[in-house]
Structures are given as structure tokens and as C-alpha cells.
């Protein structure tokens, strides 16, 4: 659905979704085209853009966001610079974390993404901690923690949820159900509906179509309003559909670069992945919604995509041309204080 916001913000949402797609297409090309540039395996957010962008659109700049191993999209969704994201992914000094974090742990403290864990449930308790800080400092800031369905297999999920509820913390648990677990399909959980786990702790839950950016924006806006008002933690499940290129530890551009024209010409999509792009792709879906809702013409959207691609290309060049960290600085950030 089209989010109920001014047209320029609607187009801003599409711009961010496209930027995530274009930036991550570069990440995959870094792996495919440059031997040894990406040192190990990596994960991308392609196919989940609607959830990250829709949710972050509902936040204020000072609100905390926590992410996962699939963080590139969340950082861009919170307003991140794609050049600094790509530079971090390939370990450059100009990256968000000066090359210390790499693809798994991109943090952007100036965007209030203060730490990123690649342990699937690693940030759940930390997010309850930033929410506690907001409560103690009596600010109106809220925290949102993104995590996948797999994180609900870890014990820290239960402990963080329980304490957040006991202490009425201003926190949204935003579970991105991508029905994918470390190469297997679906998480291993005895609960048939994962939201029931949160319900058992008396945390109110909402389930939303995670491919529908307008629906995610609407749901998050309402939940953020309520937790900001002191209603305690709330749980949002965004249901998404795994992108077919993401089936291995090294994602592949199974359909090549996404062509924005596929939004109106499904027949042009390579046949093996046609159903995902025609029905499941949240970016193309929103492009169609903007056109059918009268917010933009096809050519407006194609122009926007061209502009985003140019920006993403420039970001990739910036990353590739950026210097690597100085080996003498390898132990520089062990301690803020004297350390040793």
C-alpha cells in the first residue's frame, strides 16, 4: 500500500530501497569480479528492503537501531552513506568503522546504530539496554532491534524480552521472518507461529507483510508511537520472501542486475526467477504502487533509478579507491583509555 505521507517522502522511500538494491548488487559484484576483495562469506538484504526502509521511515534520527549480519540495508535505511557502507564491507579506512568491522558488523554511531552483532541474537539485550538508557535519562528516544526468525532460537531472546516487558522499556522487537536459517529453510522452533512466543510473555504482537513498505511503515509508526508513549515493548513480525540469489553463503546475482522496467514487464525477467521478481520483489512492487497510485509516472521512476545507480556506482568507486588501514594501527582501538 502507498504510505500516507507526502509524495516527496514516498519517492524518498523508493530511493532508499533502490539504493540498498544497487549498493548490494555492487557487494555481490565485488565478490564475483575481484579475487580476494571480500575475504569471506557475506549476507545481503536484497529482498527485505521494504521492512528496513518502512520501519526506519517511522523513526526519528535519535532513535536507536540495532541490526544483524544482514546490516547493510538497515544502515542505508537509517540514512547511511552507501560509500561508507561499501568501504567498510571491503575493509577500508574510510568505512563506517575504519575497516575494523567488515560486512558482518557495520555500525554507524552517528546514525544511532551504535553496535552491530553478527551473532543472530547478539543485539537483543543491547537494544533493551539503550531503551533502559532512554527511560533513565527520561528522553523520548525509542530503540528498534531488527533480528531474523533464527534469533528466536537463542536464549537471549527470551531473557531480553522478559526484562523489557518487566521494566516497560521503549523498545520494538522487529523480527524479520525470512524463513531461512543458515542455508536451511525455516527456523527450527516448536512454536508454529513465532509471534506466539512473544505473546506468552504478554508482549503484544503485530504481524505485517514485510514486502509491503507502506504496511511496514504504518505498523511501525503506530507501534513506535505507543512505545514512545510508555506502553512498554512491542513485537512486530515482518514476513518476507527469501530472494533466490541468497541461497548460499556467497549470494549470487541470479538474475543479473535488477532492471527497473521489470516492474511493468514481468515477461522480461529471466524465467528461472520470474515469479520472485514478478510477485515477491518489494522494490518493484512499490514502484508499481507509486505508478498505480498516481504518485509517479513510469519514466519518473526510471529516472530516479538511473540517478540512484549513478550514486551507487560512485559509492563503489569511492570504496575501491579508498586506502586500506595502516597495519601499525592494528591494536589502536582495543581500549578507549590507557589499556596497555
Amino acid at each position: 500500500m502507498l504510505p500516507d505521507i507526502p509524495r516527496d517522502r514516498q519517492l524518498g522511500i523508493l530511493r532508499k530501497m533502490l539504493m540498498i538494491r544497487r549498493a548490494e548488487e555492487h557487494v555481490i559484484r565485488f565478490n564475483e569480479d575481484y579475487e580476494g576483495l571480500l575475504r569471506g562469506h557475506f549476507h545481503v538484504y536484497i529482498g527485505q528492503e521494504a521492512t528496513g526502509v518502512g520501519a526506519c521511515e517511522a523513526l526519528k534520527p535519535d532513535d536507536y537501531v540495532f541490526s544483524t549480519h544482514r546490516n547493510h540495508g538497515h544502515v542505508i535505511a537509517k540514512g547511511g552513506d552507501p560509500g561508507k557502507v561499501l568501504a567498510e564491507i571491503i575493509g577500508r579506512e574510510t568505512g563506517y568503522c575504519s575497516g575494523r568491522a567488515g560486512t558482518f558488523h557495520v555500525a554507524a554511531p552517528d546514525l544511532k546504530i551504535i553496535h552491530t552483532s553478527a551473532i543472530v541474537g547478539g543485539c537483543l539485550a543491547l537494544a533493551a539496554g539503550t531503551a533502559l538508557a532512554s527511560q533513565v535519562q527520561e528522553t523520548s528516544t525509542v530503540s528498534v532491534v531488527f533480528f531474523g526468525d533464527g534469533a528466536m532460537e537463542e536464549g537471549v531472546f527470551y531473557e531480553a524480552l522478559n526484562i523489557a516487558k518487566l521494566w516497560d522499556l521503549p523498545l520494538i522487537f522487529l523480527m524479520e521472518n525470512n524463513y531461512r536459517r543458515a542455508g536451511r529453510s525455516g527456523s527450527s522452533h516448536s512454536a508454529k507461529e513465532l509471534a506466539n512466543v512473544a505473546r506468552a510473555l504478554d508482549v503484544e504482537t503485530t504481524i505485517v507483510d514485510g514486502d509491503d513498505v507502506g504496511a511496514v511503515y504504518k505498523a511501525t509508526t503506530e507501534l513506535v508511537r505507543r512505545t514512545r508513549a510508555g506502553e512498554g515493548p512491542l513485537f512486530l513480525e515482518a514476513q518476507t520472501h527469501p530472494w533466490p540469489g541468497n541461497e548460499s553463503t556467497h549470494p549470487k546475482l541470479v538474475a543479473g542486475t535488477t532492471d527497473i522496467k521489470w516492474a511493468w514487464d514481468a515477461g522480461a525477467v529471466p524465467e528461472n526467477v520470474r515469479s520472485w521478481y514478478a510477485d515477491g520483489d518489494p522494490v518493484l512492487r512499490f514502484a508499481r504502487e507509486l505508478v498505480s497510485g498516481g504518485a509517479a509516472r513510469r519514466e519518473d521512476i526510471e529516472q530516479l533509478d538511473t540517478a540512484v545507480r549513478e550514486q551507487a556506482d560512485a559509492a563503489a568507486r569511492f570504496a575501491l579507491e579508498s586506502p586500506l588501514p595502516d597495519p601499525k594501527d592494528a591494536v589502536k582501538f582495543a581500549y578507549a583509555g590507557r589499556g596497555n
Partner: protein
Amino acid sequence: MPQEMTIGEALVGAVGEALEHDRRVVLIGGGLVSSGPGQAAFARLRQKFAKRMKSPPIAELGYCGIAAGAAMAGLRPLVDIGTATFSYEAIPQIVNEAAIAYSNSGGQTNVPVTYFMRYGIRGGGGVQHSGSPQSWYWNTPGLQLAMPASPADAKGLLRTALLRSQDPTIFFAHERLMNERGVVPDGEYEIPFGQAEVKREGRDVTIIATGVQVPRALRAAEILSKEGVSAEVVDPRTVQPLDKTALLASVKKTGRALVTDESHDNCGVAAGLAAIIADEGFTSLRAPVKRVSIPPVPVPYAVPLEDFVTPTVERIVEVARALVKDR
């Protein structure tokens, strides 16, 4: 006027001052002391600062992570985990999140959290309540380790952790030392991390001792002095950062080193300190560096078994005697 008090009272005093001075200080967990006069003092604090005292459920993993996150967002939390072995439940959040965030962010995210825990062989704690995880945490870059052995050091070091530090600190108080008495200087003061103190001067052998081993080493030095052996006792006070200069200077003076800590022999704190002395102080040494710590067995319950594995005054004396016999 300087006052005599227990370590427990000194710790509670430091917490009270920190809560008073800095609104960012919050306490998550118990009351630091489980017995003695510190308990009443803590009960008064809990009333006065109720809003900044959080009593979590039995969820070490959850609340240790919450404290780390709160620290990242600008608070200065003190977490009382209670018995040090309970922190094993929270290792993922302490070791794999709190300790790494500053480094991972390229120096942007500070985590000024203090994890307080009572460690060591308390007497009858058995295999799960006698733990000494200081060597685990020392093997975790990003964490600081404070191990005070006197009320004065306990107060000064805890104030530094709560009010000055920008990095996560594991604060070890030995269960058997909580009611140890000593004189605490008047007024507010902090002891910077990374400053060892020579607790007793000597010429013949250096005893480097941490935490509960400091009073044991001082008693050992007393016994040795009656035998004509002059032992110097050096307390690093913080294992990380470590005042290597002071340790090496003492070894240079005496030419012999005994290192004692109440963690296990294998990769323990004593082993780590011994390695530094062997590596960087080899030319000062007239005898091999010796360790007095816990043999590699889970700490057993029955009295004679527990006594056997404890690094006692007698074991320190015995090893020191052997070290100086060719003097």
C-alpha cells in the same frame, strides 16, 4: 579523618558516592555484599537511589547485555553479578559484545560498564561457587580487570571504574576478603588503573600477588622474614591495564619472582604474569619464575580437598624458600 572499615563497606561507599555525583550511574543486580556491615549501608543506598537501582530476574545473559547497551547509550552501569561463576551465563554479552564494541566501531562506541563479581574459593562453594574467571577475562582484549585487596584500593578502583573509565571493567572482589578491614583515606579519591603498589619492600624475592593472594603473600613475607628472607610483595591492583614497569623493576631488584593468583595453573593470571617476567625480565632473573595458583581440577567440596588446592600462605612460603635457597 581516615576510617577503618571492611572492603564491603568501602565498595558500598564508592557506589554511594558515584550515584550521588553522576546521574549516569545505575546499578543492576544485587547489593555487592552478602554479609557484614556493608549490607546495612547498601540498604540505605537502595532507598535513596531507588530509581537508579534495577533488580533484574535471574537472567545474567540478558541483564549483562542490557547493561552493555545502556553503557553504549551513555549510562555508566554497575552490574552486580554476585558469584563470579554466574557470569559464565553472560559470556556472550560480556566477551562478544561489550568487549568488542569500541574496537569494532573504530573507536566510536564507548562501553563504560562495570561487571562486579565475587570470585574465588570461599570455603564450601564446591565446583560451581568457587570460580576464578579472571584469566578468561584477561584473555579478552577490550576488558579491564581490577582486583583490589584492601578497602582503600577497593574504593579508589571502583570509583575509577564508575566515574572515569571509558572501557568495560570486570571488578573482582574475593569472597573471603569482603570483611577484611583496613584504613580508608579521608575524602573522595580515585586510584588510576595500571598502577601497581609495593605492599611490602624486600630484597631477596619478589612476590607478585593479586586479590586474595595479597594478604596471603604479606603473611608469607612475615614468616619468611623470621627466617632471614626479605620478600617484596607487589600488587598490580589492575591486571589490565598492567603496570609492567613496576613488576619488572621489583624483579630487577630481587632477581627472583614468585607469582600467585587464585585462578588455575593453566593459562591462569599467574601464568600470564610469569610469561611477561620471563620474556621481558629474563636478564634480571637468578632463578626460574615460580607460580602458586590452583591445580587443574574443579575446586572440590570436602575440606581437606579444598585446602589442598588452595594457594595458601604455607604454599607461598614453601615455594619462596626453595627459590632463595641458593642465595
